[in-house]
């Protein structure tokens, strides 16, 4: 098998006496959409934070395309092609949508220690920003302050920001959080498009969305991966049913 794009090996993270990440190992192949699910408090966000570099593990390792990034700071990982969206929307509220996305493009286009030329007039950056906004369907809102955008639109900007850095791997932390039904459907459609271009790790509560999108699913319970496999296998897995999905849920979605 080819080298996986992301390899997580025996990751352990404790908070006091609680083991939030308990020997987690998983692989994400290139081109794959790998979903991580689990009940509240299963340690999903803790795991994601260690992948993005916002939290240091106590042991284990994280490899991106074969390179050990376990202890690299967040900004270095980003430079290596790892982009993330936040569970709770985290944008520059007093900047326009285009500025938000252009800054992400700027981070990956040469040095930012340039003090004199007007960055908002750099065609390359503006074009990249508009392309990414167009990708998520928000090109017409480019010049609106993010503080004036709706929650749904902000979720889309989160994606555009992540895309603008031209990542190899996208870490999406609950992109559907707080979205209405129509907005969720739009997001699923969008992710279906994006997965053709970029590998994705998706943490999500929205089960229909996860089962519609994922190539493989890992189930996290109490910090441990109790099952990992294709959606059909996860659906059929007895441990998963008991621990998380609830029998009825699985039955109704069968087939």
């Amino acid at each position, binding site marked *: 098998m080819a080298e996986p794009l992301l390899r997580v090996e025996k990751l352990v993270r404790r908070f006091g006496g609680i083991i939030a990440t308990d020997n987690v190992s998983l692989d994400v192949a290139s081109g794959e959409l790998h979903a991580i699910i689990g009940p509240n408090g299963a340690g999903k966000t803790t795991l994601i934070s260690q992948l993005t570099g916002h939290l240091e593990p106590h042991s284990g390792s994280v490899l991106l395309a074969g390179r050990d990034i376990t202890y690299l700071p*967040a*900004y270095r990982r980003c430079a290596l092609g790892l982009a993330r969206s*936040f569970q709770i929307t985290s944008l520059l509220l007093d900047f326009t949508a285009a500025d938000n996305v252009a800054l992400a493009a700027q981070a990956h286009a040469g040095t*930012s220690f340039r003090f*004199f030329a007007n*960055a908002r007039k750099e065609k390359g950056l503006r074009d990249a920003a508009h392309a990414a906004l167009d990708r998520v369907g928000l090109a017409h809102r480019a010049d609106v302050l993010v503080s004036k955008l709706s929650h749904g639109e902000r979720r889309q900007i989160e994606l555009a920001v992540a895309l603008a850095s031209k990542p190899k791997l996208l870490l999406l932390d609950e992109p559907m959080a707080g979205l209405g039904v129509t907005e969720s459907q739009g997001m699923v459609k969008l992710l279906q498009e994006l997965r053709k271009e970029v590998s994705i790790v998706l943490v999500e509560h929205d089960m229909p969305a996860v089962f519609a999108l994922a190539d493989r699913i890992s189930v996290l319970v109490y910090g441990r991966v109790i099952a990992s496999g294709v959606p059909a296998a996860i659906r059929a897995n007895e441990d998963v049913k008991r621990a998380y999905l609830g029998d009825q849920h699985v039955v109704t979605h069968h087939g």
Partner: protein
Amino acid sequence: MKAFTVSKAVTALMLAGLVLLPLYSQLSGNIFILTLLTRIVILALAAASLNLIMGFGGMMSFGHAAYLGIGGYAVGMLAQEGIGSGFIQFPVALAASAIYGLVIGALSLRTRGVYFIMITLAFAQMAYYVASGLARYGGDDGLTVYKRSDFSGLIDLGNRTQFYYLCLACLFGVIFLIWRIVNSRFGLVVQGLRSNEQRMQAIGFPAKRYQLVCFVISGTMCGLAGALLANNTDFVSPAMMYWTRSGDLMVMVILGGMGTLFGPVMGAVVFLLLEEFLSQITEYWALIMGPLLLLIVLFGRGGIMGMLGRAGRG
């Protein structure tokens, strides 16, 4: 973008006043106006430099007066040692400020929020006590600068009018630089960090590096103000960097409007004029000044610039 607004009109009026009033002063022989204006322009320069980190960068430095002292002492100490050339004094003043900014910034930027305010304050107070201890250079009593910086006939700082226009040129130059900086790649990163540091880290910007460079630029600009101030008063003393002076600079920035280009200039003009005229009326001028500032800060969000902006929109 070309729309006429109240804030633009008032700013233009203020700038025109700064450019033209000295002519009036010369014609009428009223030297007092020129002296006051020179002081205003120099402190406006210091406030503008503070605004770069405080308004645009979100770094609440409570120790900015330290640079005034460092710039001033660079001029005073060199003059004392017989080095009177401005071509040496000014670069030394700027370099010393930059180095101080680099060291203090590297240490202070490990902290955030209130701790950042307190640590910058603590360092400035340290600088104050170091200056007080410089027995060779007057210690507590300060140091008289007997000869102003000598620019070998290029410009005569002893001439009040020439000196004033030098200060004004420095102020305009610094504001021009700040204008370019805040719209540059670097400036957008710094402002992005003010807005949401976590997000900026996540898209690939190492926060501290950019903030530190911004901190140093701001300090260097303020060092220039210090060197000018020493020439203006022909005297340097530890009081230049006392914490109340840092507070004054903060008040000027907040009063005028944080994160606006000309706000700090406006703030310095209003603050120092108020101080001047109130102190002529009564010895207890601070009793009037204090509540006045409080009212503006409480009810005028965005300072004077903010209020003018709202007035413009009606």
